């Protein structure tokens, strides 16, 4: 089963993204976290036969998006995690850095748009889990 997680310290951003994901039929029950560490704890409790789509903010106080990626790297379910990095501004440095993480699929610049949602749905790695 596909589970969609949104991780961002900004509650308004969470609100917007929840709305958009629902609106474009990606999920009816997005799971939001304002603190990345809580998302890690959540993932640790999950079954290994689930698939996880994560919208991940980079710049967060405490655990940043990069720290989060480092953390899940060593986890069992890391193979089943598909991450979209969501950031206010995409720079080349971040893109370069993201290549080191197998889980990262793509980048989205805030605010998340209708096009972004369509791209998520159409993404070849995710398409099969989103038919409903």
């Amino acid at each position, binding site marked *: 089963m596909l589970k969609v997680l949104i991780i961002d310290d*900004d509650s*308004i*951003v969470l*609100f*917007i*993204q929840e*709305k*958009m994901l629902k*609106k474009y039929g990606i999920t009816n029950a997005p799971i939001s976290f304002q603190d990345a560490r809580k998302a890690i704890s959540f993932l640790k409790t999950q079954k290994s036969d689930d698939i996880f789509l994560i919208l991940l903010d980079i*710049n967060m106080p405490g655990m940043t998006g990069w720290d989060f990626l480092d953390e899940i790297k060593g986890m069992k379910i890391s193979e089943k995690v598909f991450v979209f990095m969501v*950031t*206010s*501004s995409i*720079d080349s440095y971040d893109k370069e850095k993201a290549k080191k993480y197998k889980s990262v699929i793509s980048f989205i*610049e*805030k*605010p*998340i*748009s*209708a096009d972004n949602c369509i791209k998520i749905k159409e993404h070849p790695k995710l398409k099969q889990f989103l038919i409903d």
Partner: protein
Amino acid sequence: MSYIPSALNILVIEDNLGDFILIEDYLNEIQSEVSIKRASNLEEAKTILKSNIQLDTVLLDLSLPDVDDREILVQDIVEFSNKCAVIVLTGYADNDFGVKTLSLGISDYLLKDELTISQLSKSIFYSIERKKSQIQLLESEKKYKSLFNSSPVPMFVLDRHSLEFLSVNDAAIKLYGYSAEEFLSLKVSDLWLNREEPEIEHTVNNNRHGYFEFKISHKKKSGEVIHLEIQSNPISFDGRDARVTLLNDITGRIKAEKLLTDSEQRFKALVQEASDLVMILDFNGNFSHVSPSSELVMGIPADQMLKMNLFDLIHSEDIDQVKKNILKLKNTKRVQIPSYRVKTSSNEWRWIETVLTNLIKDPAVNGLVANSRDITEFVNQEQKLIDSLKRYDIVAKATSDTITDYDVQNDLMQFNHGMELMFGYTPDQICTKGSWWDDKVHPEDAERVKSKVAQVYKNGHGSLQIKYRFRCANGSYKYILDRTYLVTDELGKPLKMIGSMQDITEIQNHIQTIEDHNERLKDIAWTQSHVVRAPLARIMGIIDLLQTDNDIVDQEELLKHILNSATELDGIIRKITNQTEQVTQNFPEC
């Protein structure tokens, strides 16, 4: 010289008693004193002939009972009768064989049936005489052969036509190294150094039966070449047309002559064709001899220079020292005059250096021998070197950089005044060991500097340009830009490292300041892209929702979010403005 012996001793070999008595009668008629021996067969004859009985003539009848082969009979008798003549008596039937016996060594043959006293008498005396001359001839030939063989002069006997060897003497065998047998299978032309000797062949052909002489080179068996004078006379040798050739080995003489010629030519070359100018002069500078190289050195032919005076050719600034040195020759045998200038035919000054030897007392010379060498090129090179060193010195003094001069082989390092002015070291603090300098390089830079230098050594050429920090006397560090050049020998072995250390501390500080500013500007840019866009993105997201979502219940809350985000954005923009102002104020004037 013929003479009739007082008594005749005759051996008659005759089996027929009647015939013997007849012959005995005849012999008694011929000579009053005659001693006659008789042998009736070969065995008896041999016994008598071996018995040392004095015999003048043997009369041999060919039909003996104990001999079948008459030819063997004649040969045996001739052999045993040694020095006395053998006359054969034959019947009519044996006339042909009688003639043949002559070639077997008998003196005469007579037909028994026609035998008369006078015929027998004439034959006996004639044969005795001939035998005597034959013996004399043989002895003379023996003497000649012994002379030929033991002569210290190498000699050949050659066939006059084919020029094959017929005989060679011991001296020739010794000279050529061929054995007598080897010689006999050769022709004289096999010894010739050159395969063809048209002149020699011509001489030989034109004087085939006469005397000739010539010079020729031969090859020994060992391949060594010898030079010979040949004298050749025609002779008869064992009945053949031959010639006896005397060889005079003149190899040694020719070598000595060549050595002498070479030595003369060498001497001539040394004196006349050398670049050194050789002159003989007196104390007044007048020449008595000038070598032909004067044309090369001075541009003046020797015969013209002979009429000049040395002192007239010398530069006025140098004349005094030259004269002073020449005067020293009154007390010493030899002086060397240091470099001085002479004027050439084209009014050019050339530097020369002269060694003078006083040979006034030598009657063959009777003067001062001056050996002069043109050293203009050398003097010019030397001047260039001095100029170059002076320039280097001036540059080293004028520059504000520290000049380093490191002798790689001897680990000796020298500095100009920069080491004191730039780094504050006093002369007694400065050490000339390479390690002293190494120690002053900042520990963080030392490894990098070391590996760069090692690379230049390894390449054996080139230069290096490197930045590092160098410790001053007071312990602080200065940023240095070092440009160093490697000097090697022809094989690429490092000899010297010459470098300049430029103080770039100030520049480095400027660079540091600029880098700090860049860092701050990067911060601003990052803030702009992330911090500014965060509230903006939020506002855009909410507006998007408001536009597309019809059933939004909490529009009011969304509008509140927009207001909050706008206020946040405003605050951020004010902060950026302040930061930028700070950067501008802090930026130093360059």
